């Protein structure tokens, strides 16, 4: 069910500022792909353009072709909400809905889709929470507010909320950057598990993390501040971290730059 993502000459703007230019890359189904690179290189922008969250900001737009199983998601008669249901997203900071209970948070997406039956919702919530390795910790307090959980638990709650609607692809925008090391490990474990079912693309600043969790790694970089970000190298993670073919990648990996 997981789908393949293909980007062709993708360029993204914020108003007149060109954030990324000419990105070409293909993400295979049921893999974990890490996007790495220095701050401001446009990796998050690229990630957000994959589920059309980029255009939420005023003045932001995307040129080029982005396909999911050969269907262009930027086509004129494509429904944005359908794209986002198919391509879920986990954000940098855990963002559970503050007014909702844990249970309501998990099933929020299902409710939007018109699922009303309590039994269906309960089943789906349990499944999603189990997939997100959170069930045991929260099963006794599903009615409590989601904001009362720890940061790591909140982030796993957000992952549960994302996978509860059964997306094909899960995007993660530095999902561990606001978390402590133990919560980070929990989320990394989770990624291994989710890989069986979803295509996962993760932006990370942490190169060890990229090396640990991903199959493929894409390295983004910019020439100077103000220049658009470009894809420098895209290869198997093993190769990128052991024997990168571009000098710039090597400099970044070894910490000489960025």
């Amino acid at each position, binding site marked *: *069910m997981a789908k393949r993502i293909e980007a062709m000459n993708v360029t993204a703007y914020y108003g007149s500022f060109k954030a990324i230019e000419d990105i070409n890359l293909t993400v295979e189904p049921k893999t974990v792909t890490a996007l790495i690179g220095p701050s401001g290189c446009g990796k998050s922008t690229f990630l957000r353009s994959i589920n059309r969250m980029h255009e939420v900001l005023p003045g932001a737009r995307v040129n080029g072709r982005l396909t*999911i199983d050969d*269907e262009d*998601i930027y*086509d004129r*008669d*494509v*429904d944005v*909400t*359908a*794209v986002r*249901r*198919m391509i879920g997203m986990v954000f940098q900071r855990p963002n559970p809905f503050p007014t909702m209970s844990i249970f309501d948070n998990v099933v929020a*997406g*299902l409710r*939007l*889709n*018109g*699922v009303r*039956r309590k039994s*269906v919702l309960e*089943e*789906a919530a349990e*499944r999603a929470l*189990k*997939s997100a390795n959170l069930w045991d910790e929260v099963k006794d307090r599903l009615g409590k507010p989601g904001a009362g959980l720890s940061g790591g638990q909140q982030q796993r709650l957000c992952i549960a909320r994302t996978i*509860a*609607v*059964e997306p094909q692809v899960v995007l993660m925008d530095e999902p561990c950057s606001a978390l402590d090391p133990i919560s980070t490990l929990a989320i990394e474990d989770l990624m291994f*598990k989710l890989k*069986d*079912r979803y295509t996962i693309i993760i932006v990370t600043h942490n190169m060890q993390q990229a090396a640990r969790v991903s199959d493929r790694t894409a390295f983004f970089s910019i020439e100077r501040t103000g220049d658009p970000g470009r894809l420098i190298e895209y290869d198997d993670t093993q190769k990128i971290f052991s024997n990168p073919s571009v000098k710039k990648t090597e400099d970044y990996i070894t910490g000489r730059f960025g």
Partner: protein
Amino acid sequence: MSTLTTAPGAAAPGQRPQLRTRRLPTLAALGIAVAAVVLSAALVYGTGIGGTALVVALAVVLYLAGLYLASNVVEGRRQARNRTWSALIHSAFVLALLPLVSVTWTLVSKGAERLDGNFFQTSMNNIGARDPNGGAYHAIVGTLEQVGVATLITVPLGVLCAIYIVEYGRGRFAFTIRFFVDVMTGIPSIVAGLFVLAFWILIISPIFNNGRPGYSGFAASLALSVLMLPTIVRSTEEMLRLVPAPLREGSYALGIPKWKTILRIVLPTALPGIVTGVMLAVARAAGETAPVLLVAGGGAAINFNPFENNQSSLALYVYQQAGDASRYAPARAWAAALTLVALVLILTIAAKLLARRNRFGR
């Protein structure tokens, strides 16, 4: 956990989402609008149950219903709801613009009639019912003096109160004060007027006035102070809180005592914001009618002394002229209303521009 394909009923629509959907063409919305107007006109005029206003109202309802139905058929329920709510929200906005435009238009068109030099140079003294002249000079004097005195009373009190809340107040007592400042914001102006009536006019002023209650501009100032105080405290408090702690600490580190730090460093930093708050409070006070009506006594002649004898104010003048039987009174009421609104809006706009400039200046 590869139960995905058999996931029981989980989001049947989300299971295999269709990326492509049918869209309601832009022209369709226009078509629905035209159809709604035509249908509505036909219904209303055909049955003879109303006029243009009803046509418009009915057309809006028909348009919303038509939009929902069309979108529901073509795009599904979610989009239909989205569109209808969006249309409702936009129409709420248009609806709110109507009174705004109407008030402005009436005010300018009716107010301009008597807005001449004479209006600003004469009072209502010896102006009979058949006299088209008469002006608001005495009322303008009253407003300026009453609001001025009220400002003099309130600003020091309000600023000190805010300083207490922000700089010294700790624990329950400070919280209580803060809470009641907020509550005080909601005291009706007529109650403030009654308070000054009961306290100043009926109890204190007879002492200076041979046992008779003495209505005066100063009493109005007292009532306006009660109304201005919470506004000034709140805005000052907010501004003081924006002054960063390092600034205070930097000053303490220099050995400057706390009270001097507050007066010399904290207050000047917050000053533009405080001035903005004071101007907004002044604008609000200048427009108050009820308290002035109760305690200033009104009066047709010019009285420069706020501490003795009756005084009028612009707002009170509007009210009195509106209730006057003379056929020339409405024109005077509107001219005074226009003057009052101009005064209040100039103050308000100046205050907001000042606030904005400061925000950008930082």
